[in-house]
């Protein structure tokens, strides 16, 4: 019995050590878990952009207003971390409101025009981010209390109450697109090659460009459907609200751009790897890395700055951000244009890369 077990053990081990690539990936995976998981989730959120404005009629800056701003700027949740808020002062309430609607700030405080202790301090918050509204509310309450003022605070959730399921559900749309394509589509492509199906194409008059178009096309549609199904689940089960047909079409546009980009990227990656095992290990690494840093789980604000650099080049981040803007905040092109641009650059690059590397395997 032992002899057989040792033989199997040695065979497995020999294969493992003879493949340096798999060896590295085996080590990289837990390290990534430690670094990315540990830092991307549950980090201390600091530097939340908020606005401060004094109510009309504006006569002069009240003592409460200046003390409030001072306290907000200095407010810390933890002494060794940067300040909780990054305060921007507005000269009028409409301007602050617009900044919030455009996603430039996540909350704004409206101080009363006089220092009557009975006058309320109003607080408007972007409620679409996870944990941030609660932090803002407790932070602002704390800062006002530090000024010694006794004014009541009235908090308003601008986008209504959004629970975690809705926040997370929108991220899952993007995750579905990435995961199904990376695992399903890429592995299917490698399996097709192993089965000789792709080589079978080469002895037929079918054009190389047709093979590429067909492969990327089918992958894109599959990815799109995966995302669309989660989108429907978000609507009917998680209860997100689509405010207008324009928003709906905009969501489809983001889904499509993401799908074609990811599919092309996967086609390119799958062309580089000849074995399913190597491909899976690389894909598992990347899909987790991209998903963790996409902000789908936890606000990007809570990540250390080195991790935010990954976010900047992570297409999944832009897709999640665009979808949240449309679905949770009802924002339009004027807000998400940058996300769309980033996605377009990613997709165009991925398509070019996919065609190039896939074509090479077809030569």
């Amino acid at each position, binding site marked *: 019995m032992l002899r057989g077990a040792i033989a199997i053990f040695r065979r497995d081990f020999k294969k493992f050590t003879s493949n340096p690539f798999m060896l590295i990936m085996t080590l990289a995976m837990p390290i990534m878990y430690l670094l990315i998981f540990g830092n991307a989730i549950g980090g201390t959120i600091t530097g939340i952009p908020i606005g401060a404005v004094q109510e009309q009629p504006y006569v002069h800056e009240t003592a409460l207003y200046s003390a409030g701003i001072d306290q907000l700027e200095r407010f810390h949740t933890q002494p060794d971390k940067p300040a909780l808020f990054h305060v921007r002062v507005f000269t009028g309430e409409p301007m602050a409101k617009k900044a919030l609607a455009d996603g430039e700030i996540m909350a704004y405080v409206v101080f009363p025009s006089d220092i009557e202790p009975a006058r309320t301090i109003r607080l408007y918050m972007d409620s679409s981010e996870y944990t941030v509204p609660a932090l803002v509310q407790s932070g602002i309450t704390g800062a006002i209390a530090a000024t010694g003022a006794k004014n009541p605070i009235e908090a308003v959730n601008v986008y209504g109450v959004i629970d975690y399921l809705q926040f997370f559900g929108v991220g899952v749309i993007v995750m579905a697109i990435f995961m199904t394509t990376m695992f399903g589509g890429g592995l299917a492509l490698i399996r097709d090659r192993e089965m*000789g199906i792709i080589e079978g194409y080469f002895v037929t008059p079918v054009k190389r460009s047709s093979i590429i178009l067909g492969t990327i096309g089918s992958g894109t549609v599959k990815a799109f459907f995966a995302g669309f199904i989660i989108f429907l689940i978000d609507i009917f089960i998680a209860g997100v609200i689509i405010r207008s047909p324009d928003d709906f079409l905009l969501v489809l546009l983001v889904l499509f751009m993401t799908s074609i980009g990811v599919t092309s990227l996967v086609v390119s990656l799958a*062309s580089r790897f000849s074995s399913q095992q190597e491909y899976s290990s690389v894909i598992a690494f990347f899909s987790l890395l991209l998903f963790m840093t996409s902000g789908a789980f936890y606000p990007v604000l809570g990540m250390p700055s080195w991790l935010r650099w990954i976010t900047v080049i992570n297409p999944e981040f832009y897709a999640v951000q665009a979808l949240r803007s449309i679905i949770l905040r009802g924002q339009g092109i004027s807000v998400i244009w940058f996300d769309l641009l980033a996605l377009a650059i990613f997709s165009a690059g991925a398509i070019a890369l996919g065609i190039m590397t896939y074509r090479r395997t077809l030569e």
Partner: protein
Amino acid sequence: MAEPDQGQVNNKGTGTVKKPDKRGQETDNLVIARDENIIRIEHISKIFRTGHREVIAVNDVSFDVKKGEIFGLLGPNGAGKSTLIRILTTLMKPTSGRAFLDIYEVTKDDEKVRGIIGVCPQNSTLDIELTAYDNLEFYGKLVNVDDNLLDERIWELLKMADLSDRAHSRVSTLSGGMRRKLEIVRAFLHRPLILFLDEPTIGLDPEARREVWQQISMLNTEKITIILTTHYMDEAEKLCERIAFVDHGRLVSLDTPANLKLAMPAGELIELGYDQMNDSIISIIRNNHQVISVEKKDGILQISAKNGSNLLPVLIAEFEKSAITITSISIRSPSLEDVFLYLTGKKFGDMTSDGPVIHSGGSL
């Protein structure tokens, strides 16, 4: 005015007597069929370089294949058959030399070439997750079969492959023989001019092999040229009109099976089993003018000789004289295998079948 005259000349040349109105056309076809070589291979070589090692897979091979024949490429594994097929089917570029299929050159007009060939590769390229019908339909679209004709054609081929009742079964549920037949008819879907079958019966049981052979013969009645590679001698002998022996990348010999056998200097092979042997009798046998070669092997004396049936009584008398007991006697005319052995000094039986080879474009 010149053309009818030529037709007249051809008519006289072939000397066939037929109804006058049909004659011209038929004879023209006949002339084309006889004279036209549908494949012309000119000094094809293929050298593989891996690091510092150089492997010459195909070494300066030239030959022609006639229109409408079943042509066999025969040789042991690693002889270069599959490489040659891959070059002819545009999957691989030759290191040097040219090859023409019909009027197209394989490296220059590769897309045109792919339009006139059907290929049944050694390793299956069927999608086992699709049904038999779906596989054919998919392939039909790849090879540009008219959509209006496709369905009818598929059923025709399924019937030909005796798979009509399994049309909507997944390929993964079909037996090895069924898959092979399906793959062969698939290659024939668009009525190609040339059909390449790379080891069509490898790994099949005798019953399935017979069925595949039947199918190949049936396809050939449709006037299609078939190039067949195999390392089974019986298969080549049964199916092929002409055979090219390939070994170590070189073309060793090319002829009809009958002519190849004639090329053997030995008329017949005599095998005599014995218990004990003394060497003097071997030299006596060797001195007989009919004997070509004598070889002692595992208790059997192999003698090739002209007119062996006459020689046999003489040999037996010699054995009796030397008081050697003969334990067995056999006499047979040479098989293709013997011809190959004679030409290459190699034995086919030593060869094992290839494992499945994954052709992948990956580079990591």
